């Protein structure tokens, strides 16, 4: 009670300060105060407002993501309690969707299985297929792709006139690069929805691609080997975002105890710290560590790596792989919080730069 009174007093002061000076820091401060009071809805509202003014602020983005995650966890607990007392399809579906949105694909699949085995519902079958597809998109393993394909076909059998399983099949096959299967999925969708201009245009595109592509197994094997889906650009073809990343790298490299700061993307790398041939060699080493870790994480079924740390007599190498590139710092001792935060910001900025450009 006392804490709540104190927090509300502080929140009032923070609101006043924000109205006087609407800076990103003040938005963040107000959001953090609401978070400590447990008002997650308010946190989301403040962060969204702040992000409209400062769309690149990594701290606000992180706080918003955390608030959303906590809200989802609260709702998960409510749904689990409700499912015990009165299970119904809408609750099962929402719970699965929350797990999928939170990236807990295995858990989503377990819930979908439980739903299916307790009700034998066709919707549950579709959810199982969706969860397995998400797992394939995250891990890029051939077995997952094959199992997702089988589940989708079961769902098509259970829901004969439904477009959703066919859409899912189209999504799976086109992302895997199995254009022959994608073509037949579009053809079946066109039977259900004749004359759809978007589908017809896509059908024409896929027709051309299907002529020189292999079957589903071949496509799944290629995805597993390269770790890249067909709709992802090869990293080598893109340029590294040097615009606002370089000054951040320079700042990071200038901090005490830092031996080198890197931003690696495909075949290119920005390096601050080591010079000449050493810079090139170190960047290559860092890139190989990240690449090996990405492959290992996928094979071990751990999903996408978020942080890689390597310690030894050489110091510590900390890398933060993002969806577009990876930033890394090489320090004498364990990296400080300031250095870790700078690395996070670097990854987020590089990513948002690239998204803006695209």
């Amino acid at each position, binding site marked *: 009670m006392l804490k709540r009174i104190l927090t509300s007093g502080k929140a009032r002061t923070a609101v006043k300060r924000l109205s006087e000076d609407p800076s990103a820091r003040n938005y963040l401060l107000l959001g953090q105060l609401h978070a400590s009071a447990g008002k997650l809805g308010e946190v989301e509202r403040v962060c969204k407002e702040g992000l409209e003014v400062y769309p690149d602020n990594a701290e606000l983005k992180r706080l918003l993501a955390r608030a959303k995650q906590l809200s989802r966890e609260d709702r998960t607990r409510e749904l689990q309690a409700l499912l015990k007392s009165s299970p119904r399809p809408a609750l099962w579906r929402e719970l699965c969707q929350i797990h999928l949105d939170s*990236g*807990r*694909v*295995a*858990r989503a699949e*377990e819930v979908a299985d439980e739903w299916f085995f307790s009700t034998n519902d066709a919707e549950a079958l579709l959810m199982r297929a969706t969860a397995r597809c998400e797992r394939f998109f*995250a891990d890029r393993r051939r077995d997952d792709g094959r199992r997702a394909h089988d589940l989708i076909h079961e769902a098509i059998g259970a829901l004969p006139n439904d477009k959703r399983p066919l859409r899912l099949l189209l999504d799976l096959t086109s992302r895997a690069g199995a254009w022959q299967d994608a073509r037949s999925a579009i053809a079946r969708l066109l039977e259900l929805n004749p004359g759809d201009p978007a589908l017809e245009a896509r059908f024409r595109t896929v027709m051309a691609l299907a002529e020189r592509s292999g079957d589903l197994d071949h496509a799944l094997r290629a995805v597993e080997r390269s770790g890249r889906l067909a709709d992802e650009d090869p990293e080598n073809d893109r340029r590294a975002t040097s615009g606002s990343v370089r000054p951040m790298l320079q700042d990071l490299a200038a901090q005490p105890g830092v031996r080198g700061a890197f931003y690696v993307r495909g075949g290119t790398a920005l390096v601050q710290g080591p010079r000449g041939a050493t810079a090139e*060699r*170190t960047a*290559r*080493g860092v890139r*190989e*560590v990240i690449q*090996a*870790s990405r492959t*290992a*994480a996928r*094979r*071990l*079924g*751990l*999903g*996408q*790596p*978020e*942080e*890689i*740390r*390597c*310690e*030894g*007599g*050489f110091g510590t*190498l900390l890398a933060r792989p993002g969806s577009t590139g990876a930033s890394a710092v090489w320090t004498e001792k364990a990296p400080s919080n300031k250095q870790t935060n700078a690395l996070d910001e670097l990854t987020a900025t590089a990513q948002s730069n690239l998204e803006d450009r695209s």
Partner: protein
Amino acid sequence: MKDVLDPLTRLPGVRLALIVSEDGVPIASAKGESSKSRGDEEGNTDSDEELEAFCGLAAGWYDEVHRAVDPLSWDRPSSISMRCARGTLVMQSCERAILAVLLHRGVVVEELRLPMGSAAARLERNRRRGVVQETSSQAQPSTDGPPGLFPGVSQSPDGSGADVNSTNEVPETSGER
């Protein structure tokens, strides 16, 4: 090995603790208590084949990281970790083995630093004790075997040396007057 892994499995958030040889063969494994109680959310490594595959892949990753940093004249990493979307893998190199711990999502790796250090030290101590016991058992005198090259030589019971009965007499005085 149980006394090495058990303290790790009692830590909250630990799914699996393993001792793996450098070439990826599982030596010992123990499931985390939190995993047993709440069920494994992020995938199972229950069967022997899965465990073997997991160990092989994990050791392979350690080796690849070492190969990647080797051209930089960096020594073999003493510890590597990877926080991923569905869990965290922490590996620490001990002499001739790797200690690996798989954590649930959301567990901070820093919290594991001290317990893993202790486990590695315990593993090392066990290994040394094993070596000492092996040495002492090898040093026990054998009475069943054939006599040595010199039957007159009697082996000392602690194996520290041999007494040779010589017939040569050493004069007590130099003989010079």
